């Protein structure tokens, strides 16, 4: 994070990420909001690249910018009367409160954590992550997959007619 290129990239990404995140929250048109969200995801992926976590970066694009946003797009298309200009709703202030408290939590965690850096340069992270997931963190990993399975079964049950 010392050379000029990284600093410039960091600020450019910061502007993109925060700007489009604000856009996603403020824009009234749902599809535009999703497009902003995709831009945010891409910006976050850029941060991962800066942090030498290239696997995470690509996974971010693939899963968030690719899959999650598609899910939202589907939700919008399947919603009747997804109008271009959504009126303000009752949830405006509660949402703001929740978002702020979430921001506070994350900020607190980020500030209090003692970040350990390896000091090494760019390296392949995919195999490290893979090994970690299937050895040290195998239990959370499996729990996550069971959770996903349960969600899938539940979704199927929910949409099943009669």
């Amino acid at each position, binding site marked *: 994070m010392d050379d000029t290129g990284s600093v410039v990239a960091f600020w450019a990404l910061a502007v993109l990420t925060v700007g489009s995140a604000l856009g996603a929250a403020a824009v009234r*048109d749902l*599809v535009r909001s999703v497009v902003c969200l995709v831009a945010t995801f891409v910006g976050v992926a850029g941060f991962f690249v800066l942090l030498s976590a*290239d696997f995470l970066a690509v996974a971010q694009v*693939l899963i968030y*910018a690719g899959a999650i946003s598609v899910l939202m797009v589907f939700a919008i298309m399947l919603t009747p009367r997804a109008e271009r200009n959504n009126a303000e709703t009752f949830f405006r202030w509660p949402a703001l409160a929740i978002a702020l408290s979430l921001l506070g939590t994350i900020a607190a965690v980020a500030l209090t954590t003692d970040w350990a850096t390896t000091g090494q340069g760019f390296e392949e*992270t995919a195999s490290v992550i893979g090994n970690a997931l299937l050895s040290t963190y195998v239990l959370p990993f499996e729990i996550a997959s069971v959770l996903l399975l349960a969600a899938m079964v539940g979704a199927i049950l929910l949409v099943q007619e009669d």
Partner: protein
Amino acid sequence: MEHLLAEWYDIRDLGNAVGHFLTWVDDRGGPSWLPYFVSGIIGVVAILLWAVLSQLGFVWIERRLIGRIQVRLGPNRVGPFGLLQPLADALKVLTKEMITPANVDRLLFWGAPAVVVMPALVVFAVLPFGEHMQLTDLSVGLLFVIAVGSVNSLIVFTAGWSSSNKYSLLGAMRTIAMLISYELIQVLALLAVAVYTNTMRMGGVVAWQDHYNVWLIFLQPLPVFAYALAGAVEINRTPTDIAEAESEIVAGYHTEYGGIRWGMFQVAEYIAGFAIAAIVATVYLGGWTLFGLEEWVPGWLIFLGKVYTYFFLFIWLRGTLPRLRIDQLMGFAWKYLLPLMLVNILVSGFEVLIWQEKDLSAGVVLPIFAIVNAGLTVAMMVGWARVMGHTGSIGEPRRAQLISDVGGVYYEPLPGGRA
């Protein structure tokens, strides 16, 4: 002699030439990032130039070839053999009026064609055109190309949605639905490659094939087929051009676009086609290597030869096949390809495990694996098709009955009552 050989190497491997140039730049002094910067610029410009020129060339080739397939001549008026036709087309597209319909979402409507070429071009950054001719050998290259492809579909969706046109909307819906289905297939296809080669670098995949002197197409016949199909789906060419099915939804997501905006979609589609061809050439067809011939023939020429040969296949298919229906294509992905791909990954992992655990020699093991996988692929495809209820070809030439007297009724409902 020595001097001549060096020059030959420069031509054979343009990457070396660039390397020499960079050393030369470095020797002049200047900041440390300058060579990186210069090499990046050279790479980007080269890729852009290549993509545009290839496209112009292939527009002509495609039109002539399709003309040939369709027993007609194809363009033959502009320039000798109609060679200048692509230029004329480009000029026409550039000078046409860009119409913006009244009710579109202007920002997205204008934005989508502006960025649509980007994902297709970015793919080439991780593909090795030859030895040392790779913009960046990303350590997750295999995943990268899929991730970028999915962004492409999102842009297509944005274009369709923002057009406020029902055909466009249908096209956008279809794009998204197929994106979800076929992205999965792509991931599974390339995952099997990673299992075999133990790397996700594009350069590493090519090096692996070079090292063992075998193309992955022989070891992974099923994923090649699956990936080729998924790629065809992604770039919207017949028989899978469902998102822009001309006979059904006019032009799908780009119905409302005209002029150069429409041109951008065409360019993007073409370059995405090259990208798919290049990925297949790199991952499954040995990239820029050709069993030692790359010592004598420029590697990039071999690579381009493979890319163009593969792209020719797209043109051929386009001239030959009708289009599938969306539910048929989706059903094919989920019910047919997905289980087979999962089995394929299991088998691949098992094979690699045996190979490594028993420490067998590659020369013995790989031919056996190739035969086993080919046999397994055929057996699985035929067997699973039977399980799914397709016994034999459904297209056995049936003919109409010939009746010589009027008045009879020969109606019989189809077995199974498909309706």
